[in-house]
């Protein structure tokens, strides 16, 4: 197999991992593992926003490949599949077409339907209200608000206005809708409704990945993750705080 084909496979696997919220060290490991299993010695450097690979070709000429990553979501099943794909390459290598097709099918896979995820977002808010010792009425209110937040967050993220705007808007919606709910049905606890509906926005993935990267010595990427987490929390709470500043007097 040609060296640039190996790099193609490695870059594609790395891109899938990075866009689906993997840790940085896992991307570097996977790229290295794929290249080694084809007998290619590669040096790679991965940032949360891009992948760089350089290989010394047979005639001693260096070949390099840069891939810019713009979108970042979280899809744990993609990470799991690419991980087992790279491990299976180690045991027996595939042809170029076969490998690219496998990666394509991993990338294209839809996973759970949007309607189901929407429903689940509502159930999450419902369950968290109960877990924080709210009443059933509170939970029903946060069920609808949680669904609304997830819906608007996904739609705004798809529209791609700018990063973190979706979190800010979700914070606004969470607080605004909770105030409306409390105004309509007296006896609800606004505090529990807002907390449980913003639970799905909090940056668990960013923080955990950042610390794991720090453990593997990748301080640059871990700073990125921590900064991302802080930005998310600040934008959600800015949204909530703006509405609360106006709304608490109104209730």
């Amino acid at each position: 197999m040609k060296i640039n084909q190996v790099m193609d496979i490695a870059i594609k696997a790395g891109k899938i991992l990075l866009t689906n919220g993997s840790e940085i060290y896992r991307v570097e490991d996977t790229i290295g593992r794929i290249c080694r299993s084809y007998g290619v010695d590669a040096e790679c450097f991965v940032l949360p926003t891009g992948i760089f690979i350089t290989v010394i070709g047979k005639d001693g000429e260096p070949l390099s490949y840069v891939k810019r990553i713009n979108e970042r979501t979280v899809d744990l099943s993609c990470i799991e599949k690419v991980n087992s794909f790279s491990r299976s390459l180690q045991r027996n290598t595939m042809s170029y077409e076969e490998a690219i097709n496998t990666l394509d099918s991993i990338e294209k896979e839809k996973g759970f339907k949007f309607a189901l995820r929407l429903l689940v977002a509502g159930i999450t808010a419902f369950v968290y209200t109960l877990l924080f010792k709210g009443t059933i009425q509170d939970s029903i209110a946060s069920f609808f608000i949680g669904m609304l937040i997830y819906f608007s967050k996904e739609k705004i993220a798809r529209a791609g206005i700018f990063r973190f705007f979706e979190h800010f808007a979700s914070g606004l919606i969470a607080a605004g809708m909770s105030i409306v709910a409390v105004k309509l049905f007296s006896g609800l606890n606004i505090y529990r409704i807002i907390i449980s509906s913003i639970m799905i926005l909090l940056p668990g993935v960013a923080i955990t990945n950042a610390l794991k990267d720090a453990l593997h010595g990748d301080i640059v990427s871990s700073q990125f993750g921590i900064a991302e987490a802080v930005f998310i929390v600040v934008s959600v709470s800015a949204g909530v705080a703006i509405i609360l500043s106006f709304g608490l007097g109104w209730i």
Partner: protein
Amino acid sequence: MEEIVLAFIASVCPGIMYNVTRRNLLWVGISGMLGWITYAWILEVTGNVVFSSFLGAIIVGLYSESVARILKAPAMVFSIPGIFPLVPGIAIYNSTQYISENKLLEAANTGIQAIACSAAIAFGILLVSAVFRLLKRSTKKETA
């Protein structure tokens, strides 16, 4: 008992949102359940939120690293939805609310609590995965 079931659902649901494969969902739920049981139990005994979050995260970390080895999946599949119930949403919200009510002292109080809790959770996960890496390295040396 009721809370245990709730904690189970509370980590399966984020699991579905993060697209965990179907055969792993059950294990994801157990991860969150164990974390929450530890958290709630330690909180009742000691009354220290930060310490309870830390121990809860350690249990989630231990569980997910071991299950990851059995099921041959990355540990993050189990640990990320598993720590979901431990995330200090209440403290973050309280801090925001105090800021909007212009009670800055209380806001700083709860804000620091939120930061301490998240640091404790992250550090718990980190500690466990460090120990597991160390173990892996030492077993590799023995076999090699």
